[in-house]
């Protein structure tokens, strides 16, 4: 039932390049893809390492601490699913391992700033889908 009521975009949870990320989020873990040859981290997932062009990879847990590279505040909903959440904040966050994630920032809007410290939180949006969000640390 929840699925039918959820009218915001849901990522392709079975996308071969990203399925492990969504499965980990479901368990409250933040992950990034690591090349088994050169150990470079990448996100979103890719079928080959853009650093060394080797295909082997594994998903590893990474730091849930990060800081805001930049952020925006949506005052208009371009998708009807977000209309009830205006105004909402989306940020690009760089975590302590140097991986960048785009995601929602929850908490007092007045305190959101470039450089602000944040930590990952895991919001169960549907019985299958958990969204990684960021709260001000």
């Amino acid at each position, binding site marked *: 039932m929840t699925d039918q009521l959820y009218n*915001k*975009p*849901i*990522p*392709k949870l079975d*996308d071969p390049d990203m399925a492990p*990320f969504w499965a980990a989020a479901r368990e409250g873990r933040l992950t990034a893809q690591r090349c088994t040859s050169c150990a470079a981290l*990448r996100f*979103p997932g*890719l079928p080959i390492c*853009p650093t060394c062009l080797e295909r082997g990879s594994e998903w590893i847990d990474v730091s849930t601490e990060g800081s805001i*590279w*930049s*952020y*925006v*505040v*949506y*005052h*208009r*909903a*371009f*998708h*009807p699913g*977000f209309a009830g*959440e205006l*105004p*909402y904040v*989306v940020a*690009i966050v*760089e975590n302590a391992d140097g991986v*960048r*994630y*785009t*995601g*929602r920032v929850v908490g007092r809007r007045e305190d959101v*700033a*470039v*450089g602000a410290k944040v930590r990952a939180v895991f919001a169960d*949006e549907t019985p299958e*889908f958990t*969204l*990684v*969000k960021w709260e001000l640390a």
Partner: protein
Amino acid sequence: MATDIDTDIRGKVAIVGVGHTPQGELPGQSPELNSVLAIKEALKDAGIGREKLDGLITCKSVQGTNTDVMVGPLLGLNPRYAQTLDYGTCNFSLHLAVQAILTGMATTVALCYGANARSIRFPFGASSPTLAGASGLMHIAGPAAMALQRHKAMYGTTDEQFGMIAVSEREWAQQNPIALFREPMSMEQYLAMPYMVEPLRRADVTMLSDGGVSLIVTRADLAADYPNKPVYVLGMSEQTGIRGEYTPDYLNREFLRGAADQIWRNTGLTTGDIDVLYIQNPTAVWVLQMLEYYGFAPPGEVGPWLAEGHTRPGGDRPLNTNGGQLSESYMWGWLHMVEAVRQLRGQAGQRQVTGAEIAMYCSTQVWLKGGASILSTHN
């Protein structure tokens, strides 16, 4: 022994015709029809029939149509050379035409763009099935606002400084009969507008419109046969950032410096030589960034520079004298090039910049590619 490749393109190719459809809402007209209607106007301007064309370079519409093979049937032509670019912005299209002409693959090429995004209500709210999309990051305004917020935090750029881009374009648009947004907009009115995607307001982002635009380009040694003053390509450059979000600060679009360095080096010109400047702008953020990367404003100081009013009518750095995409029309920058040609020919009416002899046009495909062209009536 290897011979050097001839990289001197200066003055070898000329724009000899420009044309466009009315702008705004053109219900029932496909991108391909708008392209062909624009080509008809450009051919008329060039004083030739379509049989003179042996090349066609189309630019896709936002929904991915308007390819060469879709325009061909309506144009009634099987030219020797045809090609399609994803996001030509007229700059990449012109560069391809120069390459085709200088290598002998074509002699006289029509470039075109067609859009019906307004009348079909193209859904920009559609989001990709990604973490970013699920988080509500959508519409070009999102990433653009992200870059602006970063600029504000790094350099102290204010809303009022940034707003000068939209205010200045509106002032120019008031002198352009084809501009869609001509009602006055003062800085006070701008600042009183609510944010759309903060820190961007509605006026900082282009509004969808329908229409078509076309240019006719040919070999410089043939250009004297055409009725209008030929506008020669003095230089061109491109630089990509096609790794996209895998380049950490990709929204800052630092790769644009590569396009800037090349065109200044290749032409031997400097910013001081440019009489009229055009910067493609689905959002005003593109103008903010390109003014800095191409060297028209000091790095990090474009805010205070804008506030000094250089870009406004009467200023010493006339910018987007057509009103740009914020006030003239959507058209992916194609009308910027048309305006550059009109200014150089001395056909810009009330908004004519006195003594405009060298024009520059800078454009990008979002945060993935950048290109620039320098044009002049002198070769």
